[in-house]
C-alpha cells in the first residue's frame, strides 16, 4: 500500500539490537506474523490508549441493565486501572501462549 503522508506520520526510530525490548518486539512479530513496525504501532496504541472509560454497572442505561443478574457491583474501583492491569497481564501471559 502506498504511503499517505497527509494522513499518517512516518518516523524513523533506533532501537539497540542487543536490547531486551528489541528481542521481545522481534519475538512478538514472529509469533503474530506482523511487521516489526506494526507491532511497535500496536504497543504504542496500547500504551496511550484513551478509549471511553469502562463503565460501572450502575451507569448503564436501564435497557442494558435489564439482564444484569443483580445490581451488586462487580467492579468497585477505577476501571481505568483495570484496563492497565489487563494490558500488563496480556504481556505476562503472551509469553506462555504457543
Amino acid at each position, binding site marked *: 500500500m502506498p504511503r499517505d503522508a497527509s494522513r499518517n506520520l512516518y518516523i524513523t526510530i533506533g532501537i539497540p539490537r542487543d536490547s531486551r525490548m528489541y528481542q521481545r518486539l522481534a519475538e512478538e512479530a514472529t509469533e*503474530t506474523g506482523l511487521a516489526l513496525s506494526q507491532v511497535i504501532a500496536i504497543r504504542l496504541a496500547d500504551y496511550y490508549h484513551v478509549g471511553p*472509560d469502562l463503565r460501572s454497572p450502575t451507569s448503564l442505561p436501564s435497557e442494558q441493565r435489564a439482564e444484569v443478574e443483580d445490581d451488586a457491583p*462487580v467492579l468497585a474501583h477505577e476501571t481505568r486501572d483495570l484496563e492497565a492491569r489487563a494490558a*500488563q497481564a496480556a504481556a505476562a501471559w503472551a509469553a506462555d501462549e504457543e
Partner: protein
Amino acid sequence: MIPVFCLGFDFGNAETGAVLFDPERGYLRAVTLPSATAPGRFADLLRTRAGLGLSAQAFADDPVSHVPPLSQHEYVLDYDGSEWFVGDLALTQARDPSSARGDISRYWSRRAVHLLLAASAHLIPARSAEYEVHVVTGLPVETFNAETRKRVKAALEGHFTFALNGVRRSAHIRVLSVIMEGAGALIAHGANRPITQGCIDVGGRTTDLFVARGQQPVLPLCGGKPLGVESVGDRLSQRFETVYGRPLKPAEQRTLLRAYVRRTSPEPLLPGLPEAEPVLYASGVEVPFAELCAWCEALFAEAGAEMAAFVGAAWNSSETGAVGADIAQVVLVGGGAYYVADSLRERIPHLFIPSRPELANATGYGALAQTLSRRKSEAEALARWS
C-alpha cells in the same frame, strides 16, 4: 455485521461465573449459575409449568398480566440433538445432575461448552441472534500446562448453533487465552504497581494459590489443594444422613450453605438470595435450621483451619509463623471466600475480600479478553492498511 463481545468465563467445580464486556465500552453484565447440567426437555418443562397455570402463550400475548413460565435464571439448552437443563434447573428438576466435580477433563468437556453457550446467550441480548464472542478462561494451577490449555481452546472454540429456552442462537466462539485461575482475580482486584501480590481462590472443590509480581506469575508460590466448599457440603450431607436417615440433595446443600452465610454475615454478602430460611424435612419431621447452622459453623471452622494450614505451608515467610508477610497484598476470592474468611484472616491479617468474590476471576478474564480483542482488531486493521 455480527456483533462482537468479550467474555470472562470461570467454569468452577460448583459455580460458573461469566462476565460480559463490550470491546470498546467495557463492563456490561455478569451472571453466576451452578455448574450442573442434566438431561431435560424444554417441551416437558413447559407442559409441567402450564399445569401450574404458567403458560408461555399467555405470557407472550400479555406479559404484563402473566408470569413467564421460566424464571430469569432457568436455562434449557438444545444443542447437537440433545436437550439439557443447565444450572438451577439441573439441581432442582433433574434426577441426576452432574458437574463432573474433580474430573480435570471437565474443563474441555461438552459440559464446559454447554455452560459457555448458556452463559453467553443469557448475557448477550436475544436481539443478537448471531454473535461472536472472544473468551478468556482459566485452569486451576495444578491442571495448567501447555497441553491442557490447548485442549480447552480446542473444545470451546467454534461455531455453535443452538437454542436457549427455545430461542435460536448462533455463536462464533474464539478463545483468546487460557490463564491460571487466580490470575484473573489479580487483574480484577490487584495492584497496578509491580509489587508481589497473592490470591487465595477458594472454590467448590479446590483451593488455589496464585502469586504474581505485578501480573507476572511467581510459579514457586503457586499451588492447589483439593479442598473446597463442596467438600464441606459433602460432610454436611453425611452427618445429615447419619442423624436423619437420608443424604442432602445437591440443591438442598447449596440452599443450606447460602442460607448459613446469610444468617452469619453482618451484611447481605450474597445478593439476590431469598431471605427465608430453608425448611428441610426428614421422614416427615422438620429439621431445625439452627441445628444445621451449628453443624455448618463447626465444619467450616475445620475446613478453614485446614485451608489456613495449607496457605501457611505454601507462603510461610519466616520462623515466626507469619504467613504471606512478604506478599504486599493478598486477595481472597471464589465462592468459598464467604465461608472461610474469618479462619484465614487469623493467619493473614492483610487479607482483602473484594465485592462479589465469586466473580473476581471471571471479571479479570473478561477485562483481559477485552484488551486482547482490541489488540487483535487493531492488528487486523493495521494488516489491512499496510
